[in-house]
């Protein structure tokens, strides 16, 4: 048994950590978050230059064959910096779908584009009636001689407005809740009939409402097999949850450390408030919650990379616990900062909002507690 990083992994961690420390102050993050695109193109080029965009892809695909451990390393650091660049949406989600379902020419073109930073691809999966069910798909694609005609709406497409291309989950057969009959289609954003409205989310990130009105795509828009995308989506969702939970664990670490540091500085009643036992015990609880979530994260990541049968259950456990503990730690951080915790001047509130968003993406705590229960029976 060994929980140590390899030399390469340590190098990766150090490189991301250094970037976050030197280039990603909260002020810089806020500036990028509030820019038109919602992130920094310059940072995105840096990500490409430093080789971060290629991490999860195989060598044949142009990557370095990194697995869930490498992804965890990066996302944890991103979580400390509250990174707004579309890494999760473009590399983890869309890259994951292309790597698993793309044919050779799709991979050659699109994965290469992701890796060199020239292409941003968003995954349009969510629909407003679906809540957390990735298979609840109403958006229709009808087959015709040329390919498919898409009609419907996708909601809160992460970084949808800055993407060049969308991967859209559509229904080609069956009813709205069926697992069978879901298909993935590649749709360039400038295709006629695609309308995209940018929205901002409370965590300082971007999303989009996307409407498809008689959108005609060719048959080579098909990604993977027609009608059987559900299992690909589920596999990518597992990796997405590992990535998001790693990000949240990074944020939790930052929150408890920042809170400890603040209490040592802040004086009331003539002493640093860190001296009050009522607060000390709660900071110990925050620390404990972080360590426990980190343990569940490692458990899930390692079992998933080993291809264990229990990995899915471990991921459900992780997503549940990060949902509960992440929010609890963030609430405590705000409380212990007093009025300062309510201000935008401090980053505390932004971590709270990001953690809440992560809790909601790909199913909240209750959703995964339910899944865990089903998997345990």
């Amino acid at each position, binding site marked *: 048994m060994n929980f140590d990083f390899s030399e390469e992994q340590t190098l990766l961690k150090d490189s991301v950590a250094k970037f976050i420390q030197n280039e990603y102050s909260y002020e810089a993050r806020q500036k990028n978050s509030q820019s038109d695109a919602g992130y920094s193109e310059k940072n995105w080029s840096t990500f490409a230059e430093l080789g971060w965009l290629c991490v999860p892809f195989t060598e044949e695909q142009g990557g370095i064959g990194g697995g869930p451990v490498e992804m965890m390393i990066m996302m944890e650091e991103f979580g400390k910096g509250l990174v707004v660049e579309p890494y999760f949406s473009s590399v983890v989600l869309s890259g994951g779908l292309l790597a698993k379902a793309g044919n050779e020419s799709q991979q050659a073109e699109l994965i290469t584009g992701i890796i060199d930073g020239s292409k941003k691809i968003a995954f349009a999966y969510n629909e407003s009636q679906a*809540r957390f069910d990735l298979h609840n798909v109403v958006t229709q694609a009808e087959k015709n001689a040329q390919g498919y005609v898409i009609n419907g709406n996708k909601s809160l497409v992460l970084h949808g407005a800055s993407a060049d291309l969308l991967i859209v989950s559509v229904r080609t057969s069956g009813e709205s809740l069926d697992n069978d009959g879901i298909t993935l289609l590649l749709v360039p954003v400038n295709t006629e009939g695609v309308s995209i409205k940018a929205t901002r989310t*409370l965590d300082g990130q971007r999303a989009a409402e996307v409407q498809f009105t008689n959108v005609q795509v060719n048959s080579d828009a098909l990604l993977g097999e027609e009608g059987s995308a559900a299992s690909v989506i589920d596999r990518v969702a597992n990796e997405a949850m590992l990535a998001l939970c790693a990000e949240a664990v990074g944020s939790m670490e930052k929150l408890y450390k920042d809170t400890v540091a603040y209490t040592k500085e802040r004086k009331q009643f003539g002493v640093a408030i860190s001296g009050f036992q009522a607060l000390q015990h709660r900071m110990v609880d925050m620390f404990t919650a972080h360590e426990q979530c980190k343990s569940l994260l490692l458990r899930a990541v390692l079992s998933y990379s080993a291809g264990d049968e229990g990995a899915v259950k471990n991921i459900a456990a992780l997503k549940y616990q990060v949902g509960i503990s992440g929010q609890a730690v963030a609430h405590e951080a705000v409380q212990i900062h007093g009025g300062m915790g309510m201000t*935008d001047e401090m980053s505390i509130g932004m971590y*709270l*909002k990001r953690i809440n968003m992560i809790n909601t993406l790909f199913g*909240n705590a209750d959703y995964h507690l339910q899944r865990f229960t089903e998997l345990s029976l």
Partner: protein
Amino acid sequence: MDIQFTPEDIAFQKEVKAFLSENVTDEIRRGYTGGEVDPDIMVKWQKILHKQGWVAPNWPAEIGGTGWTITQKYIFENECAESGAPSVIPFGLKMVAPVIYTFGSDEQKKRFLPDILESNVWWCQGYSEPGAGSDLAALQTKAELDGDHYVVNGQKIWTTYAQDADWIFCLVRTSSEGKRQAGISFLLIDMKTPGVEVRKIDTIDNQHTLNEVFFDNVRVPVENRIGEENKGWTYAKVLLTHERTAIAGVAQSKKGLQKLKEFAAQEKVGAGVLADDPLFTAKIAKVEIDLMALEYTELRAIASVSAGGAPGPESSILKIRGTEIQQAVSELTIEACGHYAHVINDGEAIGNDMSWVASAKYLYGRASTIYGGSNEVQKNIIAKMVLGL
């Protein structure tokens, strides 16, 4: 012991219901949406209440109060919450007014109380300072006597709604000798006085409620001091107790839970609705049980005070449990809204009526366990004063 409404109470309830259903319009409901207020709507609503004679149930009847029994107050609060009417802005009616009618001179009562009752003047509360939060007695904003004026210098922080305020009631330091509490005075300051500057504080809920207020050689007539010099702390403490009981918000939480249940009953999850989910409904049930307990704790507290007794030990937990329950309701509400609780409402926002206010309420509501004396400080007080630790 008896908890039945009398026939008079039932008649009163009917009267209140009729009044509210006639006057609480959608516009009035928009006066307060979970943090921010619309001052024009709030003033309009408070004037309607005043015309009816119901704007100040907490005041003595002789000077504009209602003379209601505790049961009537309870009925009124619950019916107001039920109707979606915004609570009155507390700073004038519920905070400074009791200090003025209890400790002010006749001249001050005549000068300030009518405008408060008629909502002609908007007040804010200048207690906290950057270095004086939980430890309020550490405040340093100085008021030095110069002829018949005080010259005020210093800074207040976290001043709610100062951007709309005409007047601010302040605790200022008039002496640095002896105990810190014994050098504090209670001053009323016109916000239009030269040298007063208000700066917005950007907050996590993206609303404008908080401000910093700076005083640079602000000249305040001595006649604006309440009571004696250096006795301000005593007056302020009285005000703080008023603030703390008003903070429990039982009726509002009841309404919040009811709205949440209605929402869960129509929010689609797969082939059913959220209310079918036993995990979620059990969480609502737990909060409801907490609230049932708190409602009676509050009634016991009110009853002992109205029977002429001092507030019993049970009253000290109202603020703690009340705010914890408010937060629990708001947490469940954003959970119910799913993804849409995390979208910025910029006019064209997506989502629904519920989600638009849910996130603002939730985020602003994080502060309810911080302001009005943080819950940690409340526990310290209970440990010391009630448990004798």
